[in-house]
């Protein structure tokens, strides 16, 4: 399968097409609305399911196999927010607060992009390692904390303590980590009991979720003019840089083609779940137009459509594939 074929498969997957349908719905001003309760339910479901699966897999992973990828992830969690911050300050001339806020988003992980990548490698017969969801938590949390630390250092104020508490108690991280612990403790046996809800329907649920995200992303696109050309470029190029970094480090850490690719996608993706909540508390002065439009309006669609096949091609190439 060459890269073009991969691209075709990705673009014609039900999930990506549902995202497009969501965009279309907004553009034709349809009265379609996903109920808030459904959106919240799907989010809870996805985070808990990611956690459960990761935890159950971790229970079966020998530490010898896990520590290198874990280390690679921690390195990414330090590098990527710093990289974003410096780029935004130096090249983009953003002020401290907004640069840090955006960096928190690009350092952490988009859960839906992560799932889309996992689904993709599975469809491509190159499934990622089972413990990947654990890496999501490992990348997510430190990246946000570091971005907030930078802002605090520069501003010399702010309630970092509360922000960190809030990140851990925040529903995203709580569900992700809680799910991991449940999965770990109850093990593969426990997971089997709940597979009919938390494993099998996973991809189908993603379709509903992406329908909604398409609608939200399309609304964000209306703000494109407000954010300026630099941030648009940033939203398209930074994922490529961070993605390559992630795929490279993952490969170095001995991960499989699929695993390194998913790690790369995680690095390339920008959070719009945990990060906005944390930024809202620690940096309320930051402008949501910037960080939400960049992460949800630009980077998310880019990764979902073009990024995923690209990172996969890169991972295959690094692993000596065609």
């Amino acid at each position, binding site marked *: 399968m060459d890269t073009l074929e991969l691209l075709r498969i990705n673009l014609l997957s039900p999930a990506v097409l549902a995202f497009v349908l969501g965009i279309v719905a907004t553009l034709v001003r349809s009265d379609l609305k996903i109920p808030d309760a459904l959106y919240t339910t799907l989010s809870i479901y996805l985070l808990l399911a990611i956690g459960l699966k990761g935890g159950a897999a971790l229970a079966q992973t020998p530490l010898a196999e896990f520590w290198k990828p874990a280390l690679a992830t921690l390195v990414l969690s330090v590098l990527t927010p710093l990289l974003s911050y410096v780029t935004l300050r130096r090249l983009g001339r953003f002020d401290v607060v907004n640069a840090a806020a955006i960096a928190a988003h690009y350092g952490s992980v988009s859960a839906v992009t992560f799932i889309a990548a996992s689904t993709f490698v599975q469809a491509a017969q190159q499934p990622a390692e089972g413990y990947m969801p654990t890496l999501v938590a490992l990348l997510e949390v430190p990246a946000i904390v570091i971005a907030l630390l930078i802002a605090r250092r520069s501003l010399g104020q702010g309630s970092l303590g509360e922000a960190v508490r809030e990140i851990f108690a925040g529903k995203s991280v709580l569900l992700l980590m809680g799910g991991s612990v449940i999965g770990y403790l109850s093990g593969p046996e426990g997971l089997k009991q709940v597979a009919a809800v938390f494993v099998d329907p996973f991809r189908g649920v993603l379709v509903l979720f992406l329908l909604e995200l398409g609608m939200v992303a399309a609304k964000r696109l209306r703000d494109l003019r407000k954010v300026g050309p630099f941030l648009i470029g940033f939203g398209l190029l930074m994922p490529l840089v961070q993605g390559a970094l992630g795929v490279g480090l993952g490969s170095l850490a001995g991960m499989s083609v699929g695993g390194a690719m998913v790690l790369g996608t995680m690095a390339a993706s920008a959070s719009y779940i945990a990060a906005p*909540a944390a930024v809202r508390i620690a940096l309320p002065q930051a402008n*949501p137009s910037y960080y939400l439009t960049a992460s*949800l309006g630009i980077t998310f669609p880019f990764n979902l459509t073009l990024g995923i096949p690209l990172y996969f091609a890169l991972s295959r190439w690094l692993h000596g594939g065609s």
Partner: protein
Amino acid sequence: MALVSLKLVTIIAEAYLEERLVREIKQLGAKGYTITSARGEGSRGVRASEWEGNNIRLETIASPAVAEKILQRLAEIYFANYAVIAYVENVEVMRGDKYT
């Protein structure tokens, strides 16, 4: 029927602030409150992500003094950084002592 005249303060704010606002108004002397989920638009365009919910509409019936304190606090802390508005009305209630 003994109707008592009190103030009804309505605060419309991002859902995300719910817990904090409730804590604040209780500290300032509110004896109760009612919240409904809402959505809306004002001068601040975008809002935090959907995952954090939309707006809330918080109502509290209180004495004029407490009502004033609540508005004051909103003006000091919230109006600058968050999407929040507030307004006050006169209402007549029964069992006026319940609210003060």
